[in-house]
């Protein structure tokens, strides 16, 4: 961006902040920053949303049930609480699965199970109801696992879901039952729920089976949720390279995969925010190192495949990976060549998730587009500033109430996949383990980074800068379009996708081309109207 625009950014920021009461302004000010030259810029993140500000964020329960467990086909997810929480989270995410990939073919992802608490359960406790519901689910479906999710009122009335889970698990003998204390008021967003989900999966599932997929190069893919079939694309790529995928957390996933995921030799993390906890714990307990990869963007995909291959230090694997990359890049390049003249110089804004607002910048760059504003819905400071800030992050009351598991090396199963010398040698060659730089280094000077953007800020931002495309979720979709700006949903992909890997990148280029060059916006003014300008003044009623 030019110097002049840079000034604009600061003025704009000041104008928006002015609309808040002083206390709110102080808080939002730290979460709403203009990118400067300095590499050490900081941003506030993962702090509680101010009441009355309309946020994109959901709750801890949403993160726990929807994100980590939801995409796993053979777990019955039972919501313990009043009806709404379960009803609203029924089959709303577009995670895909191939039930046929499991020998039993179980798939409960299309179901919604709830205890539908009534008045008397709130007054007298809901444990009996919960027990009954678990029993019924077991009798009807005979699933391998039942997961229980607590909603807000449950935490208050003090039902002990973990005791009930334990009791029922012992009673059944052939069904793993475990609970998540993921009441919506915990933490500040879905992120707290991811952490709780990670903990419980680690505690109750990982390491309970040795029957994992066999192969020479075994990895787990972490933080890939198979929206629109992304994981299928990645599975295909890995397979062609000869890499064995033991488990994907959580896309096209089965609880059996999780159970044996400690047999993999490398953890590759896509969405760092939602799942880094499991990777950390697996390293400590089983000796599996982790690396950050990203399959969004053609170049990033190539880089990630190479990174996985280099880890195994096998020339044969590296050769195969290069072959696959070459095969795929030819197609990618020809599409870029065709489309880029139509997208070059256009701009995007992205407010979504804990990694997508960063990863998708790769795809826009490949089209010659610039991301002029971005931020996460439930990110933490390390998602913006990189892992180097971890030691300086202050733990506040909202994070303190989320359990940190104490993990030690497993006396039998701990097996460092690489010796310290081997790791050091790799690192000396520039190989990075546990590396994540965050979004900040990729943002241009004068651009905006806004954490937990409010509805109001979003509308002002669009009005002022009119990006060529805006990416967020369905809650934002229709306001954005009403303002005459194309919008792409990055949670559900609007029924589109896949966008991962090389094939996905091509899908994305074509979609963005269609969106930013759409003619529909030109029809807005009716010919019989004199003034038909879309861009009017801001009316605050």
């Amino acid at each position, binding site marked *: 961006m030019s110097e002049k625009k840079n000034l604009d950014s600061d003025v704009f920021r000041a104008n928006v902040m002015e609309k808040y009461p002083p206390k709110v302004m102080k808080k939002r000010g730290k979460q709403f920053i203009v990118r400067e030259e300095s590499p050490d810029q900081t941003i506030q993140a993962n702090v509680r949303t101010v009441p*009355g500000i309309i946020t994109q964020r959901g709750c801890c329960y949403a993160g726990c049930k929807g994100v980590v467990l939801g995409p796993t086909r053979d777990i019955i997810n039972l919501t313990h609480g009043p009806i709404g929480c379960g009803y*609203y989270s029924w089959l709303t995410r577009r995670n895909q699965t191939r039930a046929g990939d499991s020998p039993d073919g179980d798939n409960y992802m299309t179901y919604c199970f709830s205890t539908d608490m009534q008045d008397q359960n709130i007054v007298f406790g809901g444990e009996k109801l919960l027990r*009954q519901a678990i029993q019924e689910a077991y009798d009807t479906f005979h699933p391998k696992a039942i997961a229980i999710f607590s909603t*807000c009122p449950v935490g208050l009335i003090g039902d002990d879901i973990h005791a009930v889970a334990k009791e029922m698990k012992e009673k059944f003998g052939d069904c793993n039952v475990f609970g998540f204390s993921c009441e919506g008021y915990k933490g*500040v967003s879905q992120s707290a729920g991811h952490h709780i989900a990670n903990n419980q999966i680690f505690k109750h599932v990982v390491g309970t089976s040795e029957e994992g997929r066999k192969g020479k190069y075994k990895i787990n893919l972490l933080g890939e949720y198979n929206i629109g079939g992304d994981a299928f694309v990645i599975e295909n790529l890995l397979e062609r390279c000869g890499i064995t995928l033991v488990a994907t957390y959580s896309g096209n996933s089965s609880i059996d995969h999780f159970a044996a995921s400690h047999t993999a030799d490398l953890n590759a993390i896509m969405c760092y925010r939602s799942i880094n906890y499991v990777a950390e714990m697996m390293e400590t307990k089983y000796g599996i190192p982790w690396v950050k990869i990203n399959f969004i963007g053609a170049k990033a995909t190539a880089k990630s495949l190479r990174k996985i291959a280099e880890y195994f230090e096998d020339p044969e694997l590296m050769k195969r990976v290069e072959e696959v990359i070459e095969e795929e890049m030819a197609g990618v390049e020809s599409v870029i060549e065709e489309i880029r003249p139509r997208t070059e110089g256009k701009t995007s804004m992205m407010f979504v998730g804990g990694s997508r607002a960063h990863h998708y910048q790769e795809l826009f760059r490949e089209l010659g587009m610039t991301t002029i504003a971005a931020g996460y819905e439930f990110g933490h400071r390390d998602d913006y500033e990189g892992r180097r800030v971890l030691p300086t992050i202050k733990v506040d009351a909202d994070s303190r109430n989320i359990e940190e598991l104490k993990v030690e090396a497993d006396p039998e199963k701990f097996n460092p996949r690489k010796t310290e010398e081997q790791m050091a040698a790799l690192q000396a060659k520039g190989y990075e383990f546990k590396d994540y730089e965050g979004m900040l280094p990729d943002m241009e000077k004068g651009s905006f980074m806004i954490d937990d953007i409010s509805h109001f800020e979003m509308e002002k931002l669009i009005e002022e800068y009119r990006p060529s495309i805006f990416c967020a979720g369905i809650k934002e979709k229709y306001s954005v379009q009403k303002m005459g700006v194309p919008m792409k949903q990055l949670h559900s992909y609007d029924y589109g996708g896949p966008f991962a890997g090389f094939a996905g990148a091509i899908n994305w280029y074509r979609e963005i081309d269609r969106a930013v060059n759409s003619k529909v916006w030109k029809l807005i003014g009716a010919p019989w109207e004199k003034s038909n300008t879309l861009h009017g003044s801001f*009316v605050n009623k």
Partner: protein
Amino acid sequence: MEGAVVNPCKACAPLGAALAMKGISSSMSILHGSQGCATYIRRFFIGHFREPVDIASSSFDENTAVFGGRENLIRGISNIVKKYAPEVIGIATSCLAETIGEDIGMYMKELAEVEGVTFIHTDTAAYQGTHINGFMKMTAAAAALAEKHEAGDSADSVSGRLRLNIIPWMVSPADIRALKRLMSDMNIDAVFLPDYSLTLDGTNWSDYEAIPHGGTTLDAIRTMGRAHHTIQFGPVSSEAANPAEVIKQKTGVPYSVLQLPLGLKNTDAFFTRIIELGSNYGCEVKLPEEQRETRGRLLDAYADVHKYLAGLSAAVYGEVDFMSAIAGFLCELGINPAVCMTGEQLNAGQIKNIQGSIAHYGFSSPQILADSDFADLDSVLGAEIKADLLVGNSRGFKSSRQAGLPLVRVGFPVQDRFGGQRILHLGYDGALSLTDRIANKIISEKQAASPVGYMSM
């Protein structure tokens, strides 16, 4: 099932409350409790209406959950006022707030000091009712703003016109628009509460709107006390929360509770009542010629489709008042509503009423599944009941797929198709378009299954 609900057929009360608020002009909703509920509800609405929907939250944290939410609510409201400057703020409570015993009424005195804003509130714990209950409760809370009409007031001078209040139940924006047009065609001055026909089915914006325009104004609500009569749809929903009764208590305006005017018989009853009211109050109210014609066309259509539909059986589901109106309408088409499922709890008398109204059309008593879910529907469809189609909201898709039966989408929510907000159900026009849709659904299945693929009927 006894313990677990599997694939529910109901949402929670705060959703209904927020929907009612969308029908009040220049208003904002705040849901008192944790932010997740507000986010889920916004998302749920947006999936159906495909319009922006803002619902604020008082964003409880763990401490608030223990020590109470007063401070969060006051802060939340001050932020809303600063940024959106609404004239009305509606406060509903989530289950969490209700569980810890938050009493919004206690905060009202403090809130009365906020200048230029009128507050409406209701308690809406989901564990005490479903979305339709929340809708009626919030509507009743708004109706309490109606003011008693003093004699000699200017309204009297507009003589000769019937003045009605219409409490239209949770119908679609298209339905509200159609009713409004009807009222104006019949020279009736009507106040609708709520009226989200524009706020939830709006146009593109030429200017940024912090709060989408449309909805019933506060002034209009206040004047509801001047009406001759209130008409409220939804007899079962009205038993639990009754806005028309609130208006009556406050202002003395009498009321009638009618079935949703869906299908020929219910629409006839609606018009009959209005014409009756006109003559009772000495106002001339005539059925517009166009309505007469549409009624004729509807009968024509009934005759046309009868040979294709008569003898079929359907499963219907949804809110009780909507479900029973749809069931009655299907009977008019010759379709037997063999099973009627709702997530709402019904007492024996209410069940008997529904069965009676269906028996009236000459069909044997349908199986009524109250306090039920789609899994219950699946099990009767798999066993004792043979059905040919499902009629209800899009949440029945899984059941329709499982049973291999076509689904005709009506009501709320319709999130897997475009145009849910524009489905017209009410009046002769609504019945006509539903008739075509249902008949075409059945015929298209037959056509697709036919090896020849006939191109005429």
